[in-house]
């Protein structure tokens, strides 16, 4: 008995430290909401990527005799006022919405985190960078968007084609107008972390600044970054719909969830289901992403892990 115990402890002793990501995954699995959220998000992503190839009705097919139909087997989500299949348009629209949401969030996150970390860590850059952030916070968003889109829409369209040109423009516009919150939160956290003793300990070892940031600061500011990331996706999807609504976004016949939502508001009283589909899709995606973020934040914090 004791020998067996001794043997197993010896075996354990030579077990090398395993990658931290396995611990993260183990903890992530215990968060039911996060698992469901991840599964649902994966489902949405797969559906909008593969769906348009499988579903037999094209998103631009106009069948004027079948217009304004209620949900049926032929048209699971019904049809719109031109007889286009709403399900096909939802799938195609999801492609753009999810892509815009994720890319714009990633852009604003990377930019915001970079500004925040640099401003918090390097004292000399703190003032200029934070004033720069304040400048962006003080800019009135809509006039700025109008000007940017007026100035750059046509060159980008010419360069990348109408749809990807607008995609790049929208992602960029949403990205550069939403990084400020992340930057401020990250800067605040970095300022607090910088005074902790483990940073001093790392300095006494001779860790250079760049590795100080990547090894000690970034992992420790991950929680607030995670939260603003999940909120950022929702924000980006909604901003995109607002832009489309104002006629500044994608062309009016090009479906996105926001576009479908705003088109359907005209028929809110006659055909309420048309508002419900894109609304539901946006809310559920945002909810799923929030749960994923919640689970990830818990999983990445070793103090919470294993509880």
């Amino acid at each position, binding site marked *: 008995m004791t020998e067996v115990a001794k043997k197993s*402890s010896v075996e*354990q*002793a030579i077990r*090398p*430290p*395993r990658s*931290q990501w396995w611990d993260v995954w183990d903890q992530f699995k215990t968060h039911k909401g996060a698992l469901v959220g991840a599964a649902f998000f994966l489902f949405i992503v797969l559906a909008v990527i593969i769906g348009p190839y499988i579903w037999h009705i094209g998103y631009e097919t106009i069948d004027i005799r079948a217009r304004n139909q209620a949900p049926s087997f032929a048209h699971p989500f019904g049809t719109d006022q031109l007889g286009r299949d709403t399900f096909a348009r939802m799938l195609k629209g999801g492609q753009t919405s999810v892509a815009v949401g994720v890319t714009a969030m990633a852009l604003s996150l990377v930019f915001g985190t970079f500004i925040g970390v640099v401003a918090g860590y390097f004292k000399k850059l703190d003032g200029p960078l934070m004033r720069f952030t304040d400048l962006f916070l003080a800019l009135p968003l809509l006039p700025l968007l109008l000007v940017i889109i007026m100035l750059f829409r046509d060159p980008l369209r010419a360069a990348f084609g109408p749809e990807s040109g607008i995609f790049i423009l929208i992602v960029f516009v949403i990205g550069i107008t939403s990084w400020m919150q992340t930057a401020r939160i990250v800067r605040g956290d970095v300022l607090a972390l910088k005074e*902790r*003793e*483990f940073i*001093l*300990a*790392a*300095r*006494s*070892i*001779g*860790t*250079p600044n760049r*590795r100080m940031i990547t*090894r*000690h600061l970034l*992992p*420790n500011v991950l929680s607030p970054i995670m939260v603003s990331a999940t909120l950022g996706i929702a924000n980006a999807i909604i901003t995109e719909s607002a832009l489309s609504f104002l006629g500044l976004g994608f062309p009016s016949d090009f479906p996105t969830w926001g576009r479908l939502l705003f088109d359907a508001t005209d028929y809110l009283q006659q055909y309420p289901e048309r508002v419900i589909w894109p609304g539901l899709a946006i809310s559920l995606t945002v909810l799923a992403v929030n749960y994923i973020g919640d689970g990830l934040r818990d999983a*990445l*914090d*070793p*103090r919470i*892990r294993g509880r």
Partner: protein
Amino acid sequence: MFDTSAPARKLVEVRDLKMHFPIYAGVFRKQVGEVKAVDGVSFDIFEGETLGLVGESGCGKSTCGRAILRLYDITDGSVVIDGVEIGHTPQSALRKIRPTMQMVFQDPQASLDPRMTVASIIGEPLMEHGNLSKAARLDRIYELMDAVGLNRNFANRYPHEFSGGQRQRIGIARALALNPKFIVCDEPIAALDVSIQAQVVNLLEGLQKKLGLTYLFISHDLSMVRHIADRVAVMYLGKVVELAPRDDIYATPKHPYTVALLSAVPDPDPNSEEVVERIILQGDVPSPSNPPEGCNFCTRCPNVLPICHHEEPKFEEVEPGRFVACHLFGDRKREASEEPETQ
């Protein structure tokens, strides 16, 4: 000037070390003054010895320790460690010298990155210096964990899963990783309870014997310093007031501040504890941003002389190996006749 008959080599030479922190105030953040946390400290540490650095809270002990390791950019003075002058070397160039000198921190909770495993904490110095393969690094990490008495199975755990004493062992293992010669122990036992203090101190002593380490042991625990240190330096308001071999300083303290400090140490013997005469200092420690003219201790010294208020005492060797900064001793014997009882 300094004791040359010592058999050991000087590993650390600190000369006139000054660390002043600027105070900014007002709308334009103008510098209105400075906190003289360390104000002209000189001492040597010989190879293989432990120098205890004691003093009350806020007297600049920790700042002094950190300044010696150049964790701060020092205001003035020179620090020579292992024959290399590092007082004003830029931080980037210091990187190569860092392995010689390491530090054990006061708060074992705060000094370990909560997001890193024990293996990666101890392995960090190995990653930074030297190019061990992954397997060799792991071997070294296990070796270090054995040396400080940590179970190898703990390698994958995170700092929050450990007790204070174990965390301090992790900190010590990290400090040892690069085979340093000189370790600054910045109150390594202050945050631990008494039973663990003994363990950690014994561990430090054992490692010193085995690896031939040199310690600067910063503490406010006078009995612990008496146990571990070979020589003791007493700091008051940013200055070293007395430096002497341990037995001498505990038996016959010279500087009035040392006398008062040592009289506060409780005695475990109830009989002698009752008769012991405590010297209660009057008043508060002056602000380090505005120290008094002359001797820093003149506002509270029970044996103050007129000269103390306008002339700063020199830090001089009054007996072989004993240094005191006080007008009552040293060359200024002209007032020796009225020397009060400072035994």
